């Protein structure tokens, strides 16, 4: 099999992993002339976008798509009829360097099917990273998939070379994982995430204390995970509770949500339909509310519903359920309160706080503060604007935000 055919198979096999981040790692470059590559300070760089709207930042591939496991949702499961391929370590190293030199990518995201044993698979993945770093002095970004229950020394070595490590939790419910992925065990996944966090903390602490010995390098961009949405019956409330638990317990940088998508040669046991993309989008918004807007998981989803509304964003939905807190005078409200106003982003809030120190905010200022006027107006008071008291109480308020019903055709 030639290299480009292998690449097709092993990129196709890797595309269901949503993670593409290449940011938040240590600052490196090759200005000493002894290596290749650098990391982007601040924002990660997305070198291309596919028509699925996903960024292409890393060369995202599997080392092999042969797999011992038979996870129903996975295109690479043992019982699937997809064509199998396997890269050699040198092929991955060369492809990464070749792509990197042409500025196609920020680095490598390497995962693998489980072959032989967890330790054998992890050793193969680590060997690629080792060769890139030690022999080719590659200083770009490396994301490695961590195999649960892999040996401690392999995990330590993976952290030494990688910027980010990740283990996918796969399913929001432990019972679904047991049903769909009989060889996987959420407890083993959690234990390994716990081990990663201890190592991340250790490296972090070592940076703070001044010692002569160089602190052990361990995945400076932290760890992340992914949950498949829509393959099982878990509702949004369950999903967000699971995320909150994972963020708190293992200090994850990100939880990625991946709408379950039809795969070639799929199993009959799963819902074969268009992926729930809007739901996925709402979950990301809710995730942001938890991480940057001070919302607790329990607040975001209406207890009785269990699901996020699809037609409006979760913050707006929260505000409509808590109208008694509005309208809010944005010239006086606290940062915490401002973060809860529909249509206000974190940067908008900072701009408001800086601006109002010296000048009152008026109606005409809204566009310059990048405020979505239609969304925010019913909820705010400005020095020259106040919504009509009836507006907040009216039942029509929710209707105002729903997308217009589309006319399907003319009666004849």
């Amino acid at each position, binding site marked *: 099999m030639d290299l*480009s055919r292998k*690449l097709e*198979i092993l*990129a*196709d096999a890797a*595309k269901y992993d949503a993670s593409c981040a290449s940011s938040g790692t240590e600052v490196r*470059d*090759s*200005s*000493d*002339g002894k290596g290749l590559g*650098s990391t982007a300070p601040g924002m990660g760089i*997305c070198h*291309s*976008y*596919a*028509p*699925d*709207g*996903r*960024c292409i930042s890393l060369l995202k591939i599997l080392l092999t798509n042969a797999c*011992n496991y038979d996870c129903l949702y996975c295109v690479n499961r*043992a*019982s699937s009829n997809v064509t199998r391929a396997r890269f050699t370590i040198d092929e991955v190293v060369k492809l990464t360097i070749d*792509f990197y*030199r*042409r*500025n*196609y990518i920020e680095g490598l995201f390497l995962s693998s099917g489980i072959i*032989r*044993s967890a330790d*054998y698979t992890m050793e193969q993945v680590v060997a690629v990273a080792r060769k890139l770093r030690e022999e080719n002095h590659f200083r770009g970004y490396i994301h490695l998939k961590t195999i649960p229950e892999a040996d401690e020394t392999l995990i330590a070595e993976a952290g030494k070379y990688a910027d980010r490590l990740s283990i996918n939790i796969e399913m929001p419910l*432990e019972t679904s994982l047991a049903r769909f992925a009989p060889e996987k065990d959420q*407890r083993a996944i959690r*234990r390994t*995430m*716990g081990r990663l966090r*201890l190592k991340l903390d250790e490296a972090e602490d070592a940076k703070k204390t001044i010692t002569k010995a160089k602190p052990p390098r361990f995945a400076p961009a932290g760890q992340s995970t992914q949950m498949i949405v829509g393959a099982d019956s878990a509702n949004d409330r369950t999903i967000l509770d699971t995320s*909150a*638990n994972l963020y*708190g*317990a293992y200090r994850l940088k990100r939880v990625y949500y991946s*709408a379950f*998508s*039809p795969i*070639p*040669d*799929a199993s*009959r046991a799963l819902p*074969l339909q*268009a*992926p729930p*993309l809007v739901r996925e989008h709402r979950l990301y918004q809710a995730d942001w509310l938890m991480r940057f807007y001070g919302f607790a998981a329990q607040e975001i989803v209406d207890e009785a519903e269990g699901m996020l509304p699809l037609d409006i964003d979760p913050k707006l939905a929260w505000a409509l359920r808590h109208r008694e807190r509005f309208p809010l005078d944005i010239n006086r409200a606290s940062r915490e309160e401002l973060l809860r106003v529909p249509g206000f982003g974190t940067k908008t809030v900072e701009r*408001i706080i*800086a601006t109002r120190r*010296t*000048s009152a*905010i008026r109606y005409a200022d809204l566009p*310059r*503060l990048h405020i979505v006027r239609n969304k925010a107006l019913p909820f705010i008071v400005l020095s020259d604007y106040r919504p009509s008291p009836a507006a907040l109480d009216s039942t029509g308020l929710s209707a105002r935000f729903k997308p217009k019903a589309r006319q399907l055709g003319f009666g004849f």
Partner: protein
Amino acid sequence: MHVVTIETETDFAGWRQAARTLAMNHVEPADIIWRFSGSDHDLLEELSAPRLPDPVEGTFNVPAKFVELAQTAILHRNPERFAILYRLLLRVRSNHDLLEIATDPDVAEVTAMARAVHRDEHKMQAFVRFREIGRERQARYVAWFEPEHHIVELAAPFFARRFADMPWSILTPDLCAHWDGSHVTFTPGVSKADAPSEDRLEEIWRRYYASIFNPARLKVKAMEKEMPRKYWRNLPEAGLIKPLIAGASQRTAEMIDQAATDPHKPQKRVETDMPRNTQTSADNLETLRDEATHCRACELWKQATQTVFGEGPANAQVMLIGEQPGDKEDLAGHPFVGPAGQMLDRALEEAGIDRKKTYVTNAVKHFKFVPRGKIRLHQKPGTPEIRACRPWYERELALLRPELVVAMGATAAQCVFGKLTQINKNRGRVIELADGVKALVTVHPSYLLRLPDEEAKTREYLRFVDDLRIAADFIRKAARAA
């Protein structure tokens, strides 16, 4: 009217010098025509207008943020930028806080210009595509790019730091940047025809692009937002966008319609696992520990990482029992490895007890907590959880048959005594329980960590060590008696 000529499109130093002189001479923004040397202009008008006023001694201060902002905004292609920046300069000079006012029209305009420049720089970092000329050691990498603003000088250092070990050139219509391995140099702009038109890797890159695309989740707008069409003509992969979109719905429908084929026979190549623990000689503590891994006797397992079982030799004379694992114990899977564990180690050593010879466990074997943002807040286990977990303690006790059980804290005391038991009333002496177990009650080491003032901390620590000394004496006597 003054005509001011700036050397090049990106000459910030020249603008700064001219602006300083004009401002010191109190020249109004409306009385200045800004030009730069390369541009066509009306010679007559220029000749008739006065040049810069004479330089005035001295300087004035503006916030560093303004300089930073102006340096970026001046790279914008807006022909009015020199004038806009001068207007803002005069206003910032009299009001140093002006830049904080996001609602000010001048601030908003200049900020938007700077943001557009940074975005363009970011897109250049992303969308430059190098093409290789020559092979191996003679290789040189050349790219063609069409920036929206005057960003070549701004962006070049990024490429120099990243691709330091390879000679490269980035050609643009405005200006070309070149790296020879030690310096960046600039030459005038060229046309696209001067750039290489292909690269041997582009075919495989295109195959990668097509394969990483998931036809079941078409989101063309999201793509166009981040990769606007104006960049497409210089991206080797962009030619695939149209056909990929066109074929997407059919490919998806096929995946959905296709009946799953008969599964292959599993292609497992299982390597026999190395036996991890060869010591199988009816090590009952081990089997008990294994069994506890799957404990679901209460709800605590759901939120926690793992069961944290007791640890220590099977012939331990002392069993130390605490409340429950904490954050760190939950992650590590071992009891007393966090801050309370360190406190315990210190106290044991002072009391003359070797921790390695003790068995250390907890009354409740899962971590109970409430999530608070990024941390997990410890919660005291309740009676139902203590009860649910007690069978594990009973079985540990039955296997170990220690001379003494040291219950640390109220939860441990409740577990050992089988009822609520006050620490202060019962500490300081060995108590024989109905089932023949000899127990000593003391505080939990984490109690010592929580005490607010140093004096109380020292006092309570010494009492804790005293209690442990009683345990040490007791074991010594028991050993002599045996």
